[in-house]
């Protein structure tokens, strides 16, 4: 019995120690780089997206890495496999223990991760949110991907270009009470009324962010309005469903379709000519700007107060707005020329 246990224990111990040494050394090296990087060049920044393996956040990581390489900081990305706030807490805690300079987090819940973020700030870690904000008192800054006015204007501009600034259009929205979509639609209607007098918005229909409902509503729109020249769908589900309908109907290429879509879903419709151009923010630029903002915070160039300005590499100069929020800028337009570069 003694013999057996000694051997069993020794075997397990050796195996674990080996595993730990192998992995521990790899981690130790990169960390050492971070500490020296903090004093010489840029900040050490840990990105914590909502979850890993999400093409959207893979793109923001690419941007963050590029920025960190430019300002000589150390970049690291960690994250849970499931997009839950409790899973994010452990990663925030770990970053706090590691004493990184800044954490950039896309919050899975505005309130739940607050205590963990504030503990991090108590330990001299700067906290930036991007993509999805927490309550303002839990972070130093928020990098917003786009503001409502910019999103509305980009969609109106695109549809006006695509239909020659005149004719009937319809809007295919998400649910009737979807806050974001309703805000954008109101702004779009104001913009059209003021700047595009020859465009008539005949109806706003609601696909409830359901693929089949959106598909059916598109079919109904084409039946009801034979003169229809364009459809704007400010929701990724709606635009994809409408594109799927149009791509197999006679109206393909005849009726313009634009709005907010994800390049991964829309690629085939851009390539087959159903859709000319649509918009969304560029998550790569979002990551890039987030990393630069974090670096500026760590360096003490800015404190996150309204009116602070900082340089963000290729993206130029940014000014901090109300609630310590920085807006990335105009939505990014995807078309046949650039769609191949994106896979989220």
């Amino acid at each position, binding site marked *: *019995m*003694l*013999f*057996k*246990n*000694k*051997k*069993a*224990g020794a*075997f*397990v*111990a050796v*195996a*674990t*120690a080996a*595993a*730990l*040494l192998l*992995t*521990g*050394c*790899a*981690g*130790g090296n*990169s*960390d*050492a780089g971070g*500490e020296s990087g903090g004093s010489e060049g840029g900040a050490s920044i840990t990105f914590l997206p909502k979850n*890993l393996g999400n093409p959207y956040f893979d793109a923001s990581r690419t941007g963050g890495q590029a920025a960190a390489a430019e300002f000589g900081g150390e970049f*690291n990305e*960690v994250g*849970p*496999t*499931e997009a*839950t*706030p*409790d899973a994010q*807490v*452990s*990663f925030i*805690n*770990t970053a*706090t*223990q*590691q*004493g990184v300079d800044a954490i950039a987090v896309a919050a899975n*819940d*505005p*309130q*739940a*991760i*607050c*205590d963990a973020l504030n503990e991090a700030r108590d*330990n001299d870690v700067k906290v930036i949110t991007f993509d999805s904000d927490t309550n303002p008192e839990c972070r130093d800054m928020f990098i917003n991907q786009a503001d409502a006015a910019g999103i509305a204007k980009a969609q109106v501009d695109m549809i006006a270009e695509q239909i020659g600034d005149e004719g009937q259009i319809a809007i295919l929205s998400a649910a009737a009470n979807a806050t974001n979509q309703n805000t954008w639609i109101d702004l779009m209607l104001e913009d059209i009324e003021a700047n595009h007098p020859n465009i008539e918005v005949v109806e706003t229909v609601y696909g409830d962010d359901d693929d089949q409902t959106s598909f059916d509503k598109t079919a109904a729109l084409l039946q009801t309005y034979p003169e229809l020249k364009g459809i704007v769908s400010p929701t990724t589900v709606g635009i994809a469903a409408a594109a799927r309908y149009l791509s197999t109907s006679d109206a393909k290429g005849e009726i313009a379709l634009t709005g907010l879509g994800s390049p991964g879903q829309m690629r085939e419709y851009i390539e087959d000519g159903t859709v000319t151009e649509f918009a969304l923010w560029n998550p790569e630029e979002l990551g890039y700007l987030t990393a630069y903002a974090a670096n500026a915070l760590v360096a003490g160039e800015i404190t996150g107060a309204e009116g602070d300005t900082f340089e963000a590499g290729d993206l130029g100069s940014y000014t901090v707005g109300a609630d310590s929020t920085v807006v990335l800028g105009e939505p990014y337009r995807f078309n046949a020329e650039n769609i191949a570069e994106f896979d989220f």
Partner: protein
Amino acid sequence: MSAVATQTSSLRPIAEYDRPLWQRLFATREMAIIGLLVVVVIVATAIVPNFGSKITLTYLLMDMFPVLIMALPMTAIIVTGEIDLSVASVVGFASVLTGVLTQAGVPFGLTIILAIAAGLIAGFINGILVTAVGLPSLAVTIGTLALYRGLAIGLLGTTAVTDFPQFWTDLAKAKLGSSGIPASVLIFVVLAVVFILMLHFTKFGRGIYSIGLSPEAARFSGVNVERTKLVLFVLSGAVAALAGVYYTLRYGSARGDNATGMEMQVIAAVLLGGVSIFGGRGALHGVIAGVLLIGVLGSALRLANVGADVINIITGVLLILAVISSSVFAAVREKAGGRKRRLAGMPAAKPENS
């Protein structure tokens, strides 16, 4: 009755009185795990930056608290040869209930009592299905794993309750003075003492071991097998609910999917701690070391920027090694013509030479 007690205790393979005292105390699987824990802590402190800090200890104990307390009743259940796979779902259900009741304006003290009561009921349902209906616990608790999780998600949908009384969230994260040790450890210590006394120093505890070795023999020797198992499942449900309340406060969020998959951490820790999955064998000091070992490994690897997937792989490999090592070495001994004292289902032979 004393004859019965003597009989059951000689059935326990952990007490082999033909070996000298120091061997019985130190050359055990439990001590191997404790030793491994010490080695890992020393290695991690030496090579992982920031591991040896106070804040690491704080977070480690806070993270592991739910697993630590749930491993206590789980040990007893596995020793009887049963298993409770529904514990993480009970955590989730208790967490959601905590959130819903808080939202409804119920005083938090009462909320805790109600959540634990719900855990008692959940455990009671498991226990009744296993004992009165006579179904295998593996099947029953896979069913209730889905059932309780479903109830949790159904109750709150995809939303989360994130607003809890500051007093209670602070309490859940409170530390003992400036030591960095979370105050919740006190709850664990109390529970651990209770379970250690119950499992290792009472007749009820000896009954638990004898059920694991042979339910029939245990029944004939006067152990109330059904009642014992029922009590253990109820305890498991209650402790899981307590873990659920803690989890909610610690992470400030009541969601239906809270603690998904945590049952695997609990069971892994129990098996790593030297408890036999076939029942009848194991001790709580090994289990506690097993939980801490998994926690320390995870913490050290996370600090070294190792991803969650790799951490799972390492924990999994460690677990498999721990589980198979005993049978492999037993087989080796058998082949080498060693002492074949313990054949399956047979009581240990009288000590040959004491």
